């Protein structure tokens, strides 16, 4: 409940402040978005399975973002940045779909 409220507050704050993304951060924005969505769906699924853990939620989100950003940073330096960024999005996207399917199963039993 408090998580949902905080999520909405975060969105509203972002919309009000409209911060400018520095150019050097731009390549990491899509990765941050997908990692954020992954954390949300993973958290919701864990909540429905009654194994939700605040520490795991925060640490997995932060570490996913950092690792994904590191991979893309390395890829940028080695000339395969966009490909690796696609790989990160695909992997996290698979996780999102799987978690969404699990959420659907536990909500609708279907």
């Amino acid at each position, binding site marked *: 409940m408090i*998580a949902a409220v905080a999520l909405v507050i975060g*969105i509203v704050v*972002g*919309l009000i402040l409209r911060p400018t993304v520095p150019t050097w951060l731009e390549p990491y924005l899509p990765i*941050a*978005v997908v990692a954020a969505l992954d954390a949300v769906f*993973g958290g919701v699924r864990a909540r429905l399975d009654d194994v939700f853990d605040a520490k795991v939620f925060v640490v997995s989100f932060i570490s996913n973002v950092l690792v994904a950003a590191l991979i893309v940073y390395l890829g940028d330096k080695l000339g395969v940045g966009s490909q690796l960024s696609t790989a990160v999005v695909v992997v996290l996207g698979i996780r999102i779909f799987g978690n969404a399917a699990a959420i659907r199963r536990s909500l609708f039993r279907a």
Partner: protein
Amino acid sequence: MTASRKVTTQQLVDLVLDPRDPGYEAAAERHGGQAPKHWYDQPLVAAGALVVGLVLAIAWVHTNRGAPAAAKAHDQLVSQVRTAEKTAGDLTRTETALTNQLNAVRAAALSGSSQLVRAIERRQLLSGEAAVKGPGLEVTLAEPTAAGAPTDGAGRATRGPITSSHILIDRDVRSVVNQLWSDGAEAVAVNGIRMTPTSAIRFAGDAVLVDFQPIASPYIIDAVGNPDGLITGFAASDVASRYQTMASARGIGFTFEQKDELMLPGSPGTVLRYARVAR
């Protein structure tokens, strides 16, 4: 070797079939299947969710701010091009007016010797600086109308959209112009741009350029000369038969007709920077 491959395959299968973060399971197992309670649980979740929401909002704002910026840059460029075109048009008009003024003043100054005036007029005629009128032939080449956007008559490229098909290129316009010269044309203009001895018909991007001015389909080539000689010569030429074939095979527009009176504008004049009269 086999074992490691098995593990790798299993990991991939796990990734697809069971994408749940094992961290939650492990944490639950550590605490005996029951999620533990800490004082920092709620603030931590709230802060995490806040960051997640912030990231999503920033991404949304960023994406939607980028698009209008690109459109704005595009609009700016378009307006710059339009301004430059307007300036060029104004300068050309000024030049034409000044040339007319110069001719008038010169004619007045040389009123004593009509022979000189005639010699100058003849040279201006040959160099394409003076506007001419007379009978001749009008050749029209056009991109297929079905594929292209409708155009409003012969135009500079700015007046209508450049047609989507590009069957006709500079070579086609040039070969018609050259054929008309060889059939005895005395003055030629393409879409209202007079051909001079230094004129070039070129191709840049998708536009035909005549003396650096882009023109669009239909290409109307006017030639002043002996009308009978022009039409018989042109009709019998290889160029005409090639475009007749293209007209039936690929649907381009190709017509030519004799005109009793054609008006060709003068060219603003050529400035020669290097050529000097050899004596």
